[in-house]
């Protein structure tokens, strides 16, 4: 598939979603569909779908203990072993997973190899992807947490605090959140590296661009709603609190941009269980990371281990007995 075709189809798909929301709300006036029904459906698909996928993975057995050892394993007491890269205790495994999930430890190892004249290979450190990944995920998390103010009658104090730190620099009015900036910058970087680097362009599928555009669209619509076409936050909260009390009322006067934002979020939620975004659940189950390197010191059972056809010593000796005797090798049967 042509790379630009992948970008194009994904972009068209997201633009179509935006237009769909605008059309549905502005022209046809389906505010309760876009404000209530679609978000509900999306939530259900998200929760049921994610649970289904994770349970689906968890039900598949792990027949062998196959950790990737990223450092010296535990052997003789005087040899320093790597507690988190080749863990031999449960705590070590938990720390390894924590480093992986919270700090993207493996991605931090990234280097860039280039083949030059000679030929010879040169290496450069390449932590930009790691940095963009960290920025993307943590700013996304911050933004989600900030949204908690729409879901609690009394805004939790940590959310207040987070918001004030996030808006510390007080650029523009209302304050532009740092997380919004970081988020949009990271999404842009992740998109650009996919189209600019030839290898990345080659491996990318529409399924790689689509979530980026969708998430980018969510970010942009969110910022627009805050900075440009301002919406009445009290009305937004009226709706969101309605969702949670199962008495949703769609208030009058919410701008179309709000519905676009909510629709894109709904699409993302419904899309997650079917997509690569499930990596967030999968990383916890990865057998090369979540098992201890205690292969030779502790038993590991394969639940479907079955007997196989082997060539026994007796069969072997039957074939070679005379030669073995001639060569002076002891045999079991004379």
């Amino acid at each position: 598939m042509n790379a630009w075709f992948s970008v194009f189809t994904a972009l068209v798909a997201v633009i179509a979603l935006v237009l769909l929301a605008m059309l549905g709300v502005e022209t046809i006036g389906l505010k309760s569909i876009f404000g209530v029904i679609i978000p509900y459906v999306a939530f259900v698909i998200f929760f049921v779908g994610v649970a289904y996928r994770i349970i689906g993975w968890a039900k598949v057995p792990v027949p062998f203990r196959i950790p990737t050892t990223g450092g010296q394993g535990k052997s003789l007491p005087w040899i320093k072993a790597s507690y988190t890269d080749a863990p031999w205790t449960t705590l070590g495994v938990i720390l390894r997973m924590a480093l992986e999930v919270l700090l993207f430890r493996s991605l931090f190892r990234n280097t860039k190899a280039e083949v030059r004249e000679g030929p010879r290979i040169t290496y450069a450190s390449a932590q930009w992807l790691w940095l963009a990944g960290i920025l993307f995920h943590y700013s996304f998390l911050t933004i989600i947490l900030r949204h908690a103010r729409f879901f609690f009658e009394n805004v939790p104090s940590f959310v207040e605090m987070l918001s004030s730190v996030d808006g510390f620099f007080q650029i523009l009015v209302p304050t532009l959140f740092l997380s919004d900036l970081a988020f949009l910058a990271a999404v842009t970087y992740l998109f650009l590296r996919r189209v600019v680097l030839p290898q990345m362009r080659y491996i990318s599928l529409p399924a790689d661009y689509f979530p980026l555009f969708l998430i980018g669209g969510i970010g942009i619509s969110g910022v627009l709603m805050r900075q440009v076409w301002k919406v009445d936050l009290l009305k937004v909260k009226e709706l969101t609190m309605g969702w949670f009390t199962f008495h949703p009322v769609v208030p009058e006067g919410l701008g179309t941009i709000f519905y676009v934002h909510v629709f894109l979020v709904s699409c993302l939620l419904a899309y997650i269980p079917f997509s690569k975004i499930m990596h967030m659940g999968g990383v916890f189950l990865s057998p090369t990371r979540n098992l201890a390197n205690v292969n030779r010191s502790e038993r590991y059972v394969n639940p479907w281990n079955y007997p196989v056809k082997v060539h026994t010593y007796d069969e072997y000796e039957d074939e070679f007995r005379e030669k073995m005797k001639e060569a002076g090798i002891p045999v079991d049967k004379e």
Partner: protein
Amino acid sequence: MELDKLPKPEEMQIDLTPPESGWMDTPVNMRDGTYSYPAAAKNLKILDMPNPREWSVTADDWKLPQNWQEIILEGFKERLEKYRSFKLFMDICVRCGACADKCHFFIGSGDPKNMPVLRAELLRSVYRKNFSTLGRMLGRFSGSRELTLPVLKEWFYYFFQCTECRRCSVYCPYGIDTAEVTMIGRELLNLVGLNINWVIEPVANCFRTGNHLGIPPHGLIDMWEFMVDDIEDITGIKVDLPVNKKGAEILFVTPSGDYFADPGTYTCMGYLMLFHELGLDYTWSTYASEGGNFGLFTSHEMIKRLNAKIYAEAKRLGVKWIIGGECGHMWRVMHQYMETMNGPADFLEEPVSPITGTKFENSKQTKMVHITEFTSDLIRNGKLKLDPSRNDRFRVTYHDSCNPARAAGLMEEPRYVLRNVVNNFFEMPENSIREHTYCCGGGAGLGNDENLDMRMRGGFPRANAVRHVRDKHDVNRLICMCAIDRATLTALMHYWAPDVEVGGIHELLANALIMEGEHERKLDLRGEPFSGEEEDEDV
């Protein structure tokens, strides 16, 4: 193919830029020198494997069973239900590309389907088509495609162009391990009779004769006795050669490559000398005469079928525990599969060194100790008399074999031994050693001659690092802990870094080992004079 038929190293064309046409629209090109020959029918028959026949990789008709698609998809489904690793790795890749330039085959060939991500996508595209609702609905937009003959040919080409070295899995943020993907990919290919002879013949040999090379018991005796004679010439000592000895304390198992060809034989002589010097109560086995396991490159079932011999022989001989020699993929099997597949070995005892009394706690379940764990413990406890100056002629670097490093975490033990037996030891650059180590380019059954072009390309990142220390530190000896390495690195060095020789750890150890009652030693195990002595005579 021979080395002199390849372009000169400096003329080797490598371009990492992908072609214009998308990967799904670029058919596989079976270029001479980059694929391996099919398995001979006789070998498949010995193993009761499906579809034995004579066929050719470059022919249009691969003589597949009529319902080959059905067989493969059925096998695919079965494995999705048996291996969480496989299912997860089909599902969670985000194609971030961190793995792309980590594969030695990609760096050496520039073929984009050698990026680990695309290698796995070869299977994922079929997975989406057949096992994912959204994938079926969206067709090519979701990156899915039908399992057709060209796709199958791609699988064959690229799953036998991966050495299961796990380097990509170190860098993957989700720990996706291409070795798992390739292993399952090869299992699926095996279901319809697509395999390579350089894997299946050793497997068939090992099944019947106990070792990959098909050496019968009396042949083994000849080889070992030859080594015993050589050792006597060099040291004046006739070392013990216990074979199939019941009631010995320890069973010793090493890859058969060490019996057969230089430079592996020198390492094997090293074991014989070390064990003799210690007075170790041990035995070789002709039935379990193979530490390696090419089953690993065939299927999980085949690993188990071949590996079963190790514990069976330990039980028959009544030994207490097992020592394993210098081998790479062997240690993937012994460390990560053996005990689960063929254990528990409750008829053995927890390994204790009879010389130092050290308990090998890390091996208390499998009862199998790595030779460098055993030897480094000896050195640490001062049980060996060593004269490292005998190795002064060598300026040494160490190549971590993929599996001991990334599947077992054996990195420091070999270095400890080396530092005690040589005076000139230099590490290669950090991103090419330990967990970052590069494959020799010929692991996982790809070390054959017909595949030589791809081997030299796949081994290029390793050779590049060796050339670096050669130019910087005059390194002239590349040490490794793997029988496949000793065979393939020799050719690799010949091509990329001609003045670097390849050898094993216990070869250098035995050079340095001062044995009780030895005559004045002038020659190393290769029959060449120790450093300095030659010059002394000249003066």
